[in-house]
């Protein structure tokens, strides 16, 4: 088990989103859950809370989250991640899915 919290610079999220929060993925073996909520401060940072069952990959997590915050305007969101050994490739997909749900809705 490893836990860490970090904020990443990111352009502010648009004034309007489809919903106040969005969830992607499930906490299950080899999978992870990403909860993305709007309304956190400051408006130009993405605040991340990660809890993972597999320690030792903090550098990869930080790199993936920093890139995501850089690529997408996600400032002012709080991202909570519960990971149960998801392969690294899945992390980015779930982040994008949560963001997509948040900004454009579930459809």
């Amino acid at each position, binding site marked *: 088990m490893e836990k860490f919290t970090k904020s990443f610079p990111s352009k502010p999220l648009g004034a309007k989103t489809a919903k106040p929060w969005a969830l992607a993925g499930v906490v299950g073996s080899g999978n992870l859950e990403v909860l993305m909520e709007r309304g956190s401060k400051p408006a130009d940072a993405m605040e991340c809370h990660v809890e993972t069952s597999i320690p030792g990959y903090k550098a990869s997590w930080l*790199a993936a989250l920093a890139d995501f915050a850089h690529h997408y305007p996600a400032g002012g969101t709080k991202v909570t991640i519960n990971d149960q050994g998801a*392969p*690294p*490739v*899945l992390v980015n*997909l779930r982040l*994008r*899915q949560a963001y997509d749900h948040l900004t454009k809705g579930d459809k």
Partner: protein
Amino acid sequence: MNTAKSAKRRQNKAERIARVGKLARGKFVSVDKVPEVLRRIIEPGDILCLEGDNQKQADFLANQLATLDKKDLRDIHLVMSCITLPAHIELFKKGMIKQVDFCYAGPQGTAIADLVKAKKFPVGAIHTYNEIYARYYIDLTPRVALIAAAQADRKGNLFLAANTEETPAIVEPTAFSDGIVFAQVNEIVDKLPRIDIPADQVDLVVQAPYPMHLQALFTRDPAAITDVQVLMAMVALRGIYEKYEVQSLNHGVGFNTAAIELLLPTYGERLGLKGKICKYWMVNPLPTLIPAIESGWVESVFAVGGEVGMERYTAARSDVFFTGRDGSFHSNRAMGQLAGHYAIDMFIGASLQIDINGNSSTVSKNRITGFGGAPNMGCQPTGRRHPTKAWLKAGAEANPGPGSPPGRKLVVQMVETFQAGRVPTFVEELDATDPGIRKALHGVTPVMIYGDDVTHVVTEEGIANLAACRSVAERQAAIRAVAGYTPVGLKRKKRETEDLRARGIVQLPEDVGVRPSEASRSLLATQDIKGLVRWSNGLYDPPSQFVDW
């Protein structure tokens, strides 16, 4: 002294056949006499061809050969497509092999790496399929070929059923150079459904006590396809298939391309791509292609081999598949490889390792697998002259000089950035550059697809268009940009990536109009093998290891 050659080979063949004598009745040998017949027809120094590719194996004859010892058989120059059976390895352990030339060693890859380390693997070269078939006509013409067929009639004509594969490519050079062709068959019948090899080219036949080994190599269970693979499939469909209007193609055997096949009737249909892409296929009868065929996407499929369980389905869809006059499926490995080399817009496949220059390999220090057919398809056929839309479009992007072909085949590597167990796919240097391996291969690094031939790399991060890169440094930056969080990927520079993205050389899923939130297994035409059976109207008979109902 007169050393000119005349017809000594023919005479030598007659002597060998005479030595068999009463061990055979006409051409027919009984099971218990096979080891002695092999001992009498093979001479020291012979080039001996054992039929066996990655699907079909002359396994009975190989097993009988392995019962012999060095005193019976020595100094053999073994030539074959695939070293896949324990019996093959036995020949090396017994010290019978002077040299081996082959293509592929899937299941025996670890055993071969061990033999290399023990210096018991005197390899000439690892080839591609068409390369070794070509050499059967040049400097590796077999004296004796041990082959496999489904049926023989009383004259020795052979029926090869769905798995014709490489039999003609072995028999012709052997039979037309006074070599001996010895066939194991599953059964001997009065009348064959069709004649694939005429009796004239067959010297000896044995009805094997068990049917020849057939590997279900191309069956991918949709249940094992992941959301990430669906995302990559969507990205490839939009960013490559749709963009270049890929009409003719080959798919590798992985789950990534299986996901693409299963997205055609759903996602592809919604994008309005039916009739515009994926019409002509050079590929084995992939069960995961059934939904696309049933939805009317596919005009034709030509195959290098059959696939276990697809016999009734392919016979019932003879408008799509090549079939004999008896109605049953036909394949041909040499011709299929030729078609895959010259006549397709795109080759797309996966790999275990890709280096920063785009070279790929399936070799690791403990496993030497060889090539098979991928390099024949995953390369630029510079002898090609006919244009297609995709070929010209890819060619224009590559900005050909006055001395270059105007078109390019799309050669696409589709990989997840990590393999199972968090092993990075992207590496600075391939394991294949290991000095021990290179020494065994006379200085050749066993690269599967050369980076210069690759036009695109697709990962879950996006697409890198290598053909559009204008320098080695740019190509390396493009590969790092899609290498995710592997050590290779982490060395990318933000500004370089942004520049490449602005120029369309690196594209994220969003850049090609893919919504990641849609990337879900529920988008596949079916989620399991049972669904494939349903799509086939009950004509597909999945092998038992795939049946859980």
